[in-house]
């Protein structure tokens, strides 16, 4: 108890975040052991983990660095494709754990590389301009992957951006990416446990980054770029650091997501997906990592909970978004909420306070 009290506020808050994730894992395991887990929920566990990672990583760019990125699905896409290529080509040739590890590493590294390539020219821009350029990046990735034909045969790798016939591939060769059909016949490998491990890894890295010296430098750029520059902070370096970290985890989330399904198409990673992730971040609170975790999980499950109301599903989903947004962000509501909470607190306070004095 003594140590807990002396702990820094941020550390305590981080522990709560980890507690929520681990608690969620334990609850699901218990439900699963008792046979109470429905197929519907168990099928959503991996996507939930993947969306949590995406939201947390995007929050680093949007909330901590303070730059609006609308191309997060693009990083997810390059990560997903590169990781899945590694997984499918190595399948059966190396132990599964090694193949899986390699595909996550490759997915993350490739996405990070793209983060670097995009980041260097793009981070000179800011605000709306940056948003539009990242949006364009996401669309480029989608269209390139959609037109990409990749396969290998005895003579080596074949690549075409036109159609399958122009690859001149041996009929016995293997197609890896088949244009708009994407990658098919993926052996499913993602599990909830892997997902949770990756969520914890993401949280560890990103929370530590935020609370480090570098993190404070990044936050100072968000708060006032000119002031940050004047005290000698290397703006480009710290901007890139945040942007690339964000891209790496988006790539890892992409691999986790794609290995949960037997097929992968580029169309999935479009503008709508980027916006969806941004909605998680905004709804959970910009800069609030724990909020992102909770919002991503809830908003992934919500549309499925609303299946019962069929055609009104999307309407209710939208209304929920609006209500939550007003409830958590509108100044009047925030003031009203604070009054109510203070009221409750002042009624409950005397007991614990007396204890504290003792």
């Amino acid at each position, binding site marked *: 108890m003594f140590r807990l009290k002396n702990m820094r506020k941020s550390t305590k808050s981080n522990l709560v975040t980890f507690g929520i994730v681990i*608690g*969620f894992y334990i609850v699901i395991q218990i439900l699963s052991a008792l046979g109470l887990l*429905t197929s*519907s929920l168990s099928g959503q566990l991996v996507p939930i983990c993947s969306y949590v990672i995406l939201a947390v990583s995007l929050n680093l760019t949007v909330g901590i660095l303070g730059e609006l990125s609308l191309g997060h699905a693009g990083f997810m896409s390059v990560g997903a494709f590169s990781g899945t290529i590694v997984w499918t080509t190595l399948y059966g040739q190396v132990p599964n754990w090694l193949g899986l590890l390699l595909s996550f590493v490759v997915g993350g590294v490739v996405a990070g590389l793209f983060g670097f390539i995009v980041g260097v020219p793009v981070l000179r821009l800011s605000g709306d301009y940056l948003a539009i350029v990242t949006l364009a990046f996401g669309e480029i990735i989608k269209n390139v992957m959609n037109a990409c034909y990749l396969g290998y045969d005895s003579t080596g790798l074949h690549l075409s951006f036109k*159609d399958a016939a122009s690859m001149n591939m041996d009929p016995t060769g293997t197609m890896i990416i088949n244009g708009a059909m994407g990658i098919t016949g993926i052996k499913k490998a993602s599990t909830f446990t892997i997902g949770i491990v990756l969520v914890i890894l993401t949280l560890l890295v990103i929370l530590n980054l935020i609370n480090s010296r570098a993190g404070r430098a990044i936050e100072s750029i968000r708060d006032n770029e000119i002031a940050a520059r004047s005290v000698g902070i290397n703006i480009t370096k710290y901007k890139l650091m945040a942007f690339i970290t964000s891209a790496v985890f988006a790539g890892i989330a992409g691999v986790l997501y794609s290995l949960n399904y*037997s097929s992968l198409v580029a169309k999935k990673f479009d503008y709508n997906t980027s916006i969806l992730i941004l909605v998680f971040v905004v709804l959970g609170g910009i800069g609030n990592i*724990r909020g992102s975790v909770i919002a991503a999980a809830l908003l992934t499950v919500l549309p*499925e*909970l609303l*299946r019962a109301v069929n055609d009104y599903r999307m309407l209710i989903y939208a209304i929920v978004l609006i209500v939550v947004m007003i409830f958590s962000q509108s100044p009047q509501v925030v003031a009203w909420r604070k009054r109510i909470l203070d009221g409750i607190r002042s009624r409950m306070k005397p007991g614990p306070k007396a204890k504290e004095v003792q």
Partner: protein
Amino acid sequence: MKKLISAALASAMVLSLAACGSTGSSESTSAATTGDSAATAEASATDGTTPIKLGGIGPTTGSAASYGIAVMQGEQLAVDEINAAAGHTVFEFKFEDDEHDAEKSMNAYNTLKDWGMQALLGPVTSTPSLSVAGETVNDNMFMLTPSASAVDVVETGDNVFQMCFTDPNQGIVSADYIAEKGLGTKIGVIYDSSDAYSMGIYNAFAEEATAKGLEVVTAVSFTSDNKSDLSTQVAKCQEAGADLVFLPIYYNEASQILIAADKVGYKPTFFGCDGMDGILTIEGFDTSLAEGLMLLCPFSATATDETTQKFVSAYEAAYNETPIQFAADAYDCVYAIYECVQNGSINGDMSASDMCDALKAQFTTMTFNGTTGEGQTWSADGTVNKPPRVYVVTDGAYQTAE
């Protein structure tokens, strides 16, 4: 304050998950109660057979909604007809929306599994079907898709069957037909490079056309992001002097191509595949532009055989619109399953896995007559064999091409 909110949110999350679990179970209990009431209804009908739970998945919202809704209506119509004719509930039917998205489709599949589905009639579109098919193999759940025509869908496993032709098959048959009848000497192709259906047909067509000695003078593409104006693609075909334009695309885009061609006075023979069916039903489209359009399609709403006529009039009565090929395939799916019920090979008391094995054996041996063709059989790989029919639009209606 922050702590309180986070605690509240955390508890809300746990609660919502619990609610998720309980909705799932409450749904299944409610389904069970309807099942019970149905069962009691049957018991009073002195039959005693348990209804079979059929699930359907398809996009009823989003960009592909017109196909999903057609399939849903076709399946529902067949289920209602069968139940009414039998005098008791043979099939219970539940259709879930997937928004033409693989992730949503998996969620829909899992929801149906919680409901107790015994056989799956869907999904409607290829991309979601690929993901769902992978899962049905693991569960050994019988899957019969009315319209997901990508060849990879049936290749996923031996429990996956198609009611429609595969894409490559359509491309090959089209090329053969064009070569055999000498419909064109210079062939242009306009296809959607972002669409798996279109690419599947086009790739096979291009290969077969070369093999048959057809001259493909130009192949131009568009993507789903830039299809608002297709006049450039039409102009390219015109420039290349194509006298036959092959359109392995869906009818909405095809109608734009016909309009664009008409504007510049370009009059080649247009040739489409099953996605073209429905072009005469587009609101505000001048059907005279489609005059002479040829299409390879297993179904025609104006066919005169008894099965088709019965289906078309029932569909029009129920939904006030002319059925397209998707609805017909869906309708046939339910009747194909019903044939297995009638010959006693499956019943509602079987588990999904047992039913899958029984249906697999049935489908590879039976011959089925439906609205999309007489004498349909299935190969062990899950593809359907039925005679392709080529129609030509004459006076605003399909006529069998000679």
